[in-house]
Every structure is written in structure tokens, then in C-alpha cells.
């Protein structure tokens, strides 16, 4: 009898245990009001209400991108992004797109170096539908040989198209190789044709099962939603998806010790004008140095009154275009400038002018008004980052990723507080030496 009571009570406990699978909820103080929670299977969930328009944006961000690819298997992350639309257990091929379109919504996806994003904006009465779609492909994507083969062919065609129509693509890849040095960081996100051809169905299945798991993902829902009801839906569709085991971790990788300036030249058959890249490496970019570096980007390159635009395009007229900025890939950052000019003489003058402007930044304190201007422009762009439901979702995802690595790039006050001395110190720290220059000649 005693045994029965004990057994019964234990079984009752097990039977009733699902009731205890509530996830933790708490609020974090950020510029965008939201609720954050983590399900038992590790899925991180962000929900932000906005009743101004009856739309909802749903974004699933998987923490995997081209950085996680091995040599010989480039393009795998991008390939999987495409395959995620080719059907899952309960959703037939291309039906995901078709279903979203029928609601009047829009859908897209993107692969970057460190994340792959799937996003859609639909009328808010279709939230459950989108969660059903996203959870099904997270749980049970269809990966079959003929589908993989077709997707590979489509991407190979896309690569060929890019290579024939983008005149400076090759030069960018060469520059990335020079400046990042590490294969994971410099190979292009869309991969190479030989690598794509060599990717097998097993490769795809392994990549999917390793990274496309709830404890490697963030689900963000913004718009005309009720938080409590949304949590209920999220738990219904996502909580039973098993968590992934042994998710491969990307090792932290800093630049090797620099060995002085590097200057190279490349002849490009597609380039219509001569040009060049100038770049500086930035180690561990997500430190306090990030904020003044970002403002330097605005001082030098953003807007018609920025220093480089004013000097090269307006005053000296030595350049046709001047672009660039701070680019961060996980632990490595690069500050780059790209210029095209009408001829070799103008190209040389443009290069000298850029070095001169960078030296000016290092040796003279920036005037207060100019600094304020750069900060104001940055503030405008920063606030525009959460101007729509989808933009807000991307912002929240970036915020969560940054906060996990201890950075506060989402905190506007860090940028508003940048001073002229900060600018000068950072310019001397990163732009004094060890620059990389790649000159482009036309054929």
C-alpha cells in the first residue's frame, strides 16, 4: 500500500509536470519597450507592442552565417537560407511565401556573416499563421537531393550574374582577403561556384541540425499584438521543438600582429574607372572604441558636408564616388574607404587627400559644431532604426546580441557623449599606421 501511494504520487508528479514548464519573463530597459523571455528549449523571444497600425512583423534570427563555414563549403549558410523556403513536414514547397503573400504581407530573408534572418510583415490577425510557418521549418525542414540540387543551381546562376554585372565585386573580395586575413572573415557570403557544387545533402543536413535549433535562435514579434496572448502562441508552436545539442561555437579570433602598411594593385576587367580601397583594422570593435569610431564614420563619410565628400567630390573634384565606413564581423572590424576616379592622376590625388584628412583628424581637435553635426546625423539614423515594426524587430535582435556580448551599441547616450578628444585618441589609435591599400586599375 505504501509502495502504491509513493508510485502514484510520483506518477502524478510526472503527469502534471508540463504545467511547470512556464518560462521566465522579465523586462529590460531599452529605448523600445518590449518583453523578453527564454523558453525551456532555449529559444529567446522578444515581443514589442505597437497598436498604431494593424500589422505584425515576425523575425527569426539564427545565430549562424558565413563565418561558420569551412573552406570548401562556402555558400552553405546562404544555400540553407534558400532551402528554408522549399518546404517542411506540413508545408509544401514555396507554400510559405505563397501563404504570406495571400494575406497581403511581404516576406524576405537575408544571410550575413554571423546571422541568418527570416522575416515577414503581415496583417496582425495572421500572427498565429506566421508562427505556424516559422516553427514548422525550424522543426522539420525538408532536405531532399533534388531540391538541394535545384537550389544550388539557382545560386550558382546568381553568382554568375553578380560577377558579370557588379564591376567592383572582385576587387572587394581581394581587399577583404588582404585586410581580414582569416578565411572565415574574408570569403563572400554567397560562396563560390566550385564550393557550392561540392556541397552534399549530408552537409546541408548537418548544418541545419547543428544551427537551426531553438537554443540558437531569437524570435522577435513586433506590432499590433497582445503580449500575453502572443506568449501563449509562441509556447504552443515553439516550445515542443527539441533544443539542439553541442552547437558548434565560433572561436574568438583577433587580427594577427600587424606588420606595417600593405599596398597592392589589381587589374579588373569589369571596372569602368580606376579606384582604390583604404582600410584600417580594428580589433575587438565592440568595446568603448566603437562609439567614437562610428562618429568618425559620420565625420568623414556621411552626408554632403562630410570631410571626404566635401574635399574629393566638391572642392578638388578628384573622385566620382567616395563610400565606406566601419564594418564589424564578430570580433574583427575594419574601417574602409572606397573611391573611384576618372583617371590615374585623379586617383592618386584622391588617395593623398584621404591620407591628409585622416592626419588632420589625428592631429587637430575636431571643431565642436562639426562634431555636433556628426552626432546629430547619427542620432537621426539611429532613431530611424526603429521607425517601423520590422526595423524595430531588427533593432531588438541586434540589441539582444550586443547585450549578450557585453556591449551597449544600442545605447544612444554612448554616442551622444563622444567628445573631440575621444575622436582624436581613437584616430591615433587606429589610423596612425598599418593601413591596407588596394589600387584598382582598369583593363
Amino acid at each position, binding site marked *: 500500500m505504501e509502495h*502504491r501511494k509513493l*508510485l*502514484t504520487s510520483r*506518477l502524478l508528479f*510526472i*503527469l502534471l509536470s*508540463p504545467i511547470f514548464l512556464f518560462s521566465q519573463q522579465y523586462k529590460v530597459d531599452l529605448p523600445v519597450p518590449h518583453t523578453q523571455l527564454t523558453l525551456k528549449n532555449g529559444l529567446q523571444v522578444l515581443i514589442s507592442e*505597437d497598436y*498604431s*497600425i*494593424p*500589422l505584425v512583423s515576425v523575425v527569426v534570427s539564427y545565430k549562424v552565417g558565413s563565418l561558420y563555414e569551412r573552406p570548401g563549403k562556402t555558400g552553405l549558410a546562404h544555400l540553407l537560407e534558400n532551402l528554408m523556403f522549399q518546404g517542411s513536414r*506540413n508545408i509544401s514547397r*514555396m507554400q510559405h*511565401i*505563397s*501563404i504570406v*503573400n*495571400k*494575406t*497581403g*504581407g*511581404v516576406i524576405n530573408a537575408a544571410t550575413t556573416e554571423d546571422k541568418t534572418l527570416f522575416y515577414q*510583415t*503581415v*496583417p*496582425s*490577425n*495572421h500572427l*498565429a*499563421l506566421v508562427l*505556424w*510557418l516559422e516553427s*514548422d521549418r525550424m*522543426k522539420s525542414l525538408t532536405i531532399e537531393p533534388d531540391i538541394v540540387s535545384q537550389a544550388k543551381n539557382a545560386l550558382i546562376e546568381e553568382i554568375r*550574374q553578380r560577377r*558579370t*554585372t557588379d564591376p567592383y565585386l572582385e576587387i572587394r573580395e581581394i581587399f577583404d582577403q588582404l585586410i581580414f586575413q582569416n578565411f572565415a572573415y574574408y570569403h563572400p557570403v554567397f560562396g563560390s561556384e566550385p564550393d557550392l557544387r561540392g556541397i552534399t545533402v549530408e552537409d546541408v543536413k548537418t548544418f541545419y541540425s547543428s544551427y537551426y535549433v531553438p537554443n540558437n535562435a531569437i524570435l522577435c514579434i513586433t506590432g*499590433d499584438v497582445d503580449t500575453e496572448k502572443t506568449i501563449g502562441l509562441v509556447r*504552443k*508552436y515553439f516550445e*515542443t521543438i527539441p533544443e539542439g545539442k553541442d552547437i558548434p561555437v565560433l572561436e574568438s579570433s583577433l587580427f594577427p600582429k600587424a606588420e606595417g602598411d600593405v599596398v597592392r594593385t589589381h587589374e579588373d576587367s569589369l571596372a569602368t574607372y580606376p579606384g582604390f580601397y583604404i582600410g584600417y583594422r580594428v580589433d575587438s570593435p565592440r568595446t568603448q572604441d566603437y562609439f567614437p569610431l562610428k562618429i568618425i564614420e559620420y565625420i568623414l563619410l556621411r*552626408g*554632403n*558636408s562630410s570631410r571626404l565628400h*566635401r574635399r574629393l567630390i*566638391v572642392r578638388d573634384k578628384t573622385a566620382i564616388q567616395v563610400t565606406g565606413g566601419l564594418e564589424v564581423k564578430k570580433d574583427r572590424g575594419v574601417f574602409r574607404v572606397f573611391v573611384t576616379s576618372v583617371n590615374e592622376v585623379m586617383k592618386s590625388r584622391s588617395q593623398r587627400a584621404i591620407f591628409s584628412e585622416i592626419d588632420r583628424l589625428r592631429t587637430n581637435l575636431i571643431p565642436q*559644431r562639426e562634431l*555636433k*553635426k556628426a552626432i*546629430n*546625423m547619427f*542620432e*537621426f539614423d539611429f*532613431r*530611424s532604426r*526603429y*521607425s*517601423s*515594426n520590422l526595423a524595430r524587430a531588427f533593432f531588438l535582435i541586434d540589441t539582444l546580441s550586443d547585450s549578450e556580448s557585453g556591449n551597449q551599441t544600442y545605447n544612444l547616450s554612448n554616442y551622444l557623449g563622444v567628445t573631440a578628444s575621444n575622436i582624436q585618441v581613437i584616430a591615433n589609435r587606429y589610423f596612425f599606421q598599418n593601413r591596407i591599400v588596394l589600387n584598382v586599375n582598369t583593363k
Partner: protein
Amino acid sequence: MLTPNKEKKEIHLFVNYTRWVFFVFFFLWGTFLSSQERFRRNPPPPDPLPVLHLPNLQSQNLTNGLALSVIRKENLPIINLWLVVRTGESSSPDGSPGLATLTNRMLSKGALNIAAAQLEERVEYIGGYFSHVTFPDYSIMGFSFLEQNLDDALYIISQIILRPAFSRIEIENVKRAIRYEHLANMRDPEYVARWLLLKILFADHPYRKGFYDDDMIRNLTRSEVVSFFSRYFRPNNALLVLLGNLNFPTATRKVSSFLNTWPKGELRYEPVESPNANKKMRVCFIDLPNTNDATIFMGNVIPAATDEDYFPFLVFNQVLGGTPNSRLFMNLRESKGYAYYAFSAIEIFKSCSVFSLKCRVRPEVVYSSVMESLKETERTLKNKISTSELEEAKSYLIGNFPLGIETRERLSMKISENLALELGNEHWNDYYENIMLINSNKVFEAVQDTPLLTPVVVIVGDQKKIIGHLREFREVEIYNDKGILLQKLKWEGEDS
């Protein structure tokens, strides 16, 4: 104490009991698990359609005739300002297409007391930027900035409107920029195809001036810009739309204080007649070297958006080619494998609309793609749309409408378009109702006398890869990148 027999019986009962408990446990657990997954088999039904509360537009005409509209939006500390002038490229003089575009772009290039470089600096200092877009019927200058700088922004606007500089150097700079942009755009096959299609459809109509080439821009002069500005950039020909955390009386007072000295102009409104539709199918080709595929745009003139048949036409367009679920896509891409994409669209102007189909196909199936598109169009014209397709199309149009006004830029553009083209409440508050009232009879009746089967067809691609595949058309007009007809190719032994 238990006897051996009694003990055996106890154990036996206990084992049976345990078996039953485990059986019940696993049965319930299995049911629980399978019920969890059963719901995945089918899509969940939608909730009821949410109510769309359109932003409240408060409007007033100032004493000088400037129409001011304010939309209160509190979510961001940013103000969007749109100056809409009810004059576009159709009003450019016949020999000066592009003049409206140039004049509009020159507004942000300095005032008499603020040089262009200084103006750029001042605008960027308040966290702002300008944007310009010119259509055949109207022109927009957009100005967005941080909200705490409203007074500075209005001061800047007042100076460039009341005392524009139009410096010769800046005019040459802007002309150069417009030309380079046009040349860059002319590397995009879709841009080229649409550009030539509209140029041909509007060949005998003032709208043709909106589709200029780079050479035409080169010849524009400062005196033309000054004259165009003086004539058309007047408050009684303009609207100012403000969007932000703004109180209407305060916004009205501030705008008035900065712009009430903007003098009215003598404007004679001359309605632009609708262009004639193309009556016989024409096939036109432009060479774009180094492109692998053929891009096709085909279309014709249809009634304006203010016409009672516009909404049925919207539904027709949705069924035919609005999304990847529509007939064109399912036929040309999914069924025949001709196209990478195939869609249809309606573009609206004040005096007409243009209905067009676009697709990108392999060179060898150009003729088949055009014919199949026409066949699909005819099928949709000649047969009443089924209930399921109709409801799907309406559902899409209703669901998609909020997306068209979700961001500040899209909202401002929509309001500017509605006001400039005088589209009225049918395209705003009454939009949902207008869509809901459509039935297949209305669609059928609306599209019967339209010239969709006699389109102008524009094909863009690499001549070396495509020209041989155009034989089946029997006659093709060859154009250059200025939109000038070079020759007509005829097969069956004739060349002209």
C-alpha cells in the same frame, strides 16, 4: 504479518496495479504529445480582420493659398516635411524635358543668403536630409530632421523658397548628377524597359517629357529654371505636409510665420487630357549588351484612378499578376518555366493610368512569353473571375493596404499622391469599402473595352543573344538608348 500466500497475492495485485498505472500514464502522455503535434498539420485560422485607424489629417489653407496638412505621429522624435508642388514634368516646355526635375533638385542647392555648401552643412547639423522626386503631374521636396529643430528647418525652407539662389555652378553640378544617375539607371534592364514603354505610350502627350534622356538635360539653362520656378512654385499651387509629434495650431502658426510672405502666383489650371491608348500591338527592342536574359515590359493606357472602374481594375490586376500566386507567375514561371518572374501592375497619373506586365525570361522564349502573357490576359478579360480568386485578390488588397502606409516615408508619399492627384476619400477612408464591394461582374464589365490586348511590348537585352529570337514577331522596332527609333526590322524578306 503476512502469510506466504497472502504475500504472493499482495505482490500480484501490486504488479497488476502498477501495470495499469503505467498503461494509463503512457496512454495519456501519448495522447498529450500527439495532440500537441496534430495542430501543426493545418494552418491556424486568422483572427477577425483588425480595424485600420487611418492617421488623422488636419488641413487648412493659409492666407496665401498654401495648403497645410498635419499628421500627428508620436513614435519618433523626427519630423518629416513634404513640399508638394502640383506641377511636374508634363509642364516642362516642349523643348526642355527634365526642367521640372532640375528645378525641384535646385531647391536644396542654396539660397541668396546661404551658399549651397553652407546650406548642406546647416541641414545636416539639424540631423536632416533632403530628398527630391518629380513625377509627370507633381514634384515633391522632402525634408526630414530631428524634431527639436523645427524652427531651424522652417527657416531653411523659407529661405530656399523665398530667395532661391540657382547659382550657375550648382545648376551645372545638378545637371551632371542627373545625367550620371540616368546613365547608371540605363544599365538596369527593368528601368530601361519601363522608360521606353512610357516614352512610347506618351509619345503624343505632355507626359512624355518625364522620360527624358541625358542629352536633353545638358541643354537646360539657368533662365529656364528661374522662369519655371517663378511660374509654378507658388503657394496656391503647393501643399505642405508635416508628420511628427506636432500640435496642429502650433504647426499652422509656425509655418505661417515663415512662409506667409511667399507670394501667390497667377496660375491657370489647364487639365491634361488622357493620352490615346495604343490600338495595335507594337514590339520594340533596345540593345543592352552583356545581359544574359530578356526583360519584357508590355502595357497600355487605361482609365485614371479617379474613374469608377479603377477599383475593379485593381482586383483584375491582382488576379492576373499581383503576386507569385497570380496567373501570370503560375503560368510563365511555375508551369512553363519561361520566366524568373512575371507580374502586372497599375501605375497612376492624373489623367490616366498605365497597366503593364513585366517579366524576365530566357532569350529563346521571348516570343512564347509575350504570347503566353497575352493569352493569360485574354483569359482573364473574357471569363468572369472565380469566387475563390476574387476573394483571394480582395483579401490581398485589403491586407496589403496598411503596408503601403506603415513607414513615415510611405505614409507621406501616399498622402502627397492623394492630395496632388486629388484622389479623394475613395483612396483613403473608403478604400476598404471600395474593395469589399467588388464582385466578379463588376470586374468583368470594367475591363471589357480596355486595350490590354493591343499593348506596346518593349524587350530589353543583349542584341547578340536576342535578335534572332524576335523573328516570330515579324516586325520589331529598334530603338537606341535615347529612345529614338533607328529602324524597323521586318521578317519575311523585307527591311526598312
